[in-house]
């Protein structure tokens, strides 16, 4: 077992984990942050995307121990004072979610897309950049619209 410490959504946390424990398991099972989902075992679906030290990471691909000392942000850490993050609001306004299972990963990836591409991002770029996130419900049409609207919202 290993002792690990990290900051998750601004809170210092610590835990004892097996060497093989994945970051997503630590978040879901020990911290009970169940907004980060597991949709596959091959790092394809993107339901588990979080930010680690500001970078977008599939938390099923990283050991919890590798995140020792890191700053982690999950879907639970985006809203502040009861206000949805602009990207969350854009997903709601544009009906960019149906069953909600892929949504946390989509929103986290969307924020990362905006960080890297700025607040004006064209449809083709959004579609290409979303290749690491699978949604079965929406056909992506409204997710693409939401990412573009959220980008504008984040740009202020």
């Amino acid at each position, binding site marked *: 077992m290993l002792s690990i410490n990290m900051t998750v959504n601004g809170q210092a946390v610590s835990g004892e984990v097996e060497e093989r424990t994945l970051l997503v398991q630590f978040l879901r099972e020990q911290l009970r942050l169940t907004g980060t989902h597991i949709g596959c075992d091959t790092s394809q679906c993107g339901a588990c995307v979080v930010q680690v030290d500001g970078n977008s990471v599939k938390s099923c691909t990283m050991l919890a121990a590798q995140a020792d000392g890191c700053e982690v942000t999950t879907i639970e850490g985006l809203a502040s004072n009861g206000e949805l993050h602009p990207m969350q609001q854009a997903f709601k306004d544009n009906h960019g979610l149906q069953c909600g299972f892929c949504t946390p990963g989509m929103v986290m990836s969307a924020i990362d897309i905006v960080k890297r591409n700025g607040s004006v991002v064209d449809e083709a770029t959004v579609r*290409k950049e979303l290749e690491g996130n699978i949604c079965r419900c929406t056909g*992506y*049409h409204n997710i693409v619209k939401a990412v573009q609207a959220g980008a504008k919202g984040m740009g202020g």
Partner: protein
Amino acid sequence: MADNGIGASVRRKEDNRFLLGKGNYTDDINVAGQTYAVFVRSPHAHATLDSIDTSAAQAAPGVLAVFTGDDLAADGIGPLICGVTVTSDDGEPHRAPMHPALAQGKVNYVGDHVAVVIAESLAQARDGAELVQVDYGVLPAVTDTATAADGSQQQIHEVAPDNMCFNWPFGDKEAVDAAFDAAHKVSTLDLINNRMVTNPMEPRAALGEYNSGSEEITLHLTTQNPHVHRLVLSAFNQLAPEHKLRVVGPDVGGGFGAKIFVYAEELVVGWACRKVNRPVKWTADRTEAFLADAHGRDHVATAEMAMDENGKFLAMRVNTRANLGAYLSTFGTMVPSYLYAFLLAGQYATPLIYSEVKAVFTNTAPVDASRGAGRPEATFLLERLVDVCAADMGLDPAEIRRRNFIPTDAFPYQTPVVQCYDSGDYHAALEKALSLADYEGFAARAEEARSRGKRRGIGLSSYVEACGIAPSAAVGQLGGGVGLWESAQVRFNPTGNVQVFTGTHSHGQGHETTFAQLVCDQLGVPIENIEVIHGDTAKTQFGMGTYGSRSLAVGGVAIAKACDKLIAKGKKIAAHALEAAEGDIEFADGSFAVAGTDKAMSIGEVAFNAYVPHSYPEGVEPGFDENAFFDPLNFSFPAGTHICEVEVDPDTGVVDIVRYSAVDDFGKLINPMIVEGQVHGGIAHGVGQALLECARYGDDGQLLTASYMDYAMPRADNLPSFDVDYAPTDPPDNPLGVKGCGEAGAIGAPPAVINAIVNALGVKHIDMPATPENVWRAAKSAA
């Protein structure tokens, strides 16, 4: 308030919890003392189970128990059932092999359930499962749909000679054959409907808890139909009496059919939690989902159309082999029979249809309903055949459809294959779609593409589907074991807010919003004061769940009927309070008023009076809480025309969908935003089938596509944005005038895409999925 009523694109009430990471999916639920289940699955497609040694696993750290099929049998649990009987041509019911939840004596597909290990942690359960020693006697595997029942293959089940489940002819063969003999022209097409894995993004899961005090089992499940699960687990699997079994379907991350069925894991978890007297959780990993979720489609068919000299359809003849997998899933027999052959008329006035379906067993995962269920198979076959007919007759695909559509003034229309279509205007949808797709301008676009070395194609698909499932009497006549009504309860609390309990289940469809809009519209209560509750047998009185695009067309009507009862009761209460005759009370916009006066009271005040009945009409019960059941009079028949335009790179075989236009008739729309989202998702599902997805088994029965590395799901960059419009008609049999929209895209899209590719390449046919390799080969052969 009307702003949030029928016809408004209200933003969804359920979204905040999903966006905040506060959804409550089955695997998110953790309870004190929880243990973990891991299943030992067969690595072989077909083998005898010669011995199972669980001793090392039993002794492993953290392992509480290891169970096999013998343990289940000793407790009288199971087997799993199929709920719909199809009568074979010999007059006997379909062949139904024993389907134990944990295998006994034999395994019949890769992923079949051999044993379950229960341990303190998931890792310990996995480690324990590795230690279960199984001796298998490997047998030859049967995987090929076309040849499984031709007598050349190993027989899988004793009860099913030649691996035949049923041979089900339907229609007047002699009349059809005579029409073919006399026809001006016969068009023929051989085609495959590729096998799909349904793939909701949330893998299946189950959490069982046993209360030894009340002797009640609570089972949280990834289910589309909690009451159906409870009924089957109780009545047929002997898990627990119905009143001692609570099934909860909390937030469910997509279903698309895959979460209708009662699976082995669910039964075993429910049983094991009582056995070890600890909560037991099981969550599938994605590869388990690929191996053991029910799959969809998998038909091999030959279709023929007889025509006169004007391209008018005289008769159709269809021969289908349908793969049902290793065992019969809960509704497996119904999909390639009633949900398939009864839709073969499509939008056309073809007077004679003969269909023969041979359903076969193979050593593959069970096959059952998957978004559309039978109707995509029928539509793909018919709409591809119609394009072949058009080519054979030298007619434009739009023109041959116009010539054969059921006339708009012929509704309700009795087809030769049982169904009586409620309403439709197929010409209107076609013409609107042609306009939306700029069909006229296609030739110029194709020319321009050709100048760049690309091949453009355009494809039509005019589909009709039967949903709003289903009139119970019809279900019974067809051999179904259940009634398919829906129930609702609408309860005012004394403070005036409303709880709506529905027996349908929302797993992405937005019922919490759409149904609140219905109630807001009918009762005049602000939408923020209405809560829709579903998915818990302990809360909702009863329900048959969500599938077959039935929730609004059946469940929504039940809600409206409960609201009607509240209004009727409210009139009595208001009449007493307002000192007027009941007949003089009118209800509108949330207010009971005495006609012709300014005397009125709000529905909230009426509700308060009903719970605090200090001055109350004689003979009226206190309380303001009504329930209703609704059994539909008919299926509903959404229809439409979808048009796909593709650009094919003949050098690489890559297909780019450059434009996709859909015009659908869903009757009245309650929330257009949600409906459009359903259409988008359905189209993507259909495009996935047409271009990308295929479950492939090797000859040895190994599933070669058991992860997202090998099974191509549609991603954002595989798809365009969609142009969606409507051509509604008013279905006379549905009190709300609604039809159902959840499956339309998955039904309409595959033939539209393939017709476009065929058009681009100038070939007769290409099988799905039209991968770059398949398209490249077809392009080469055409050149």
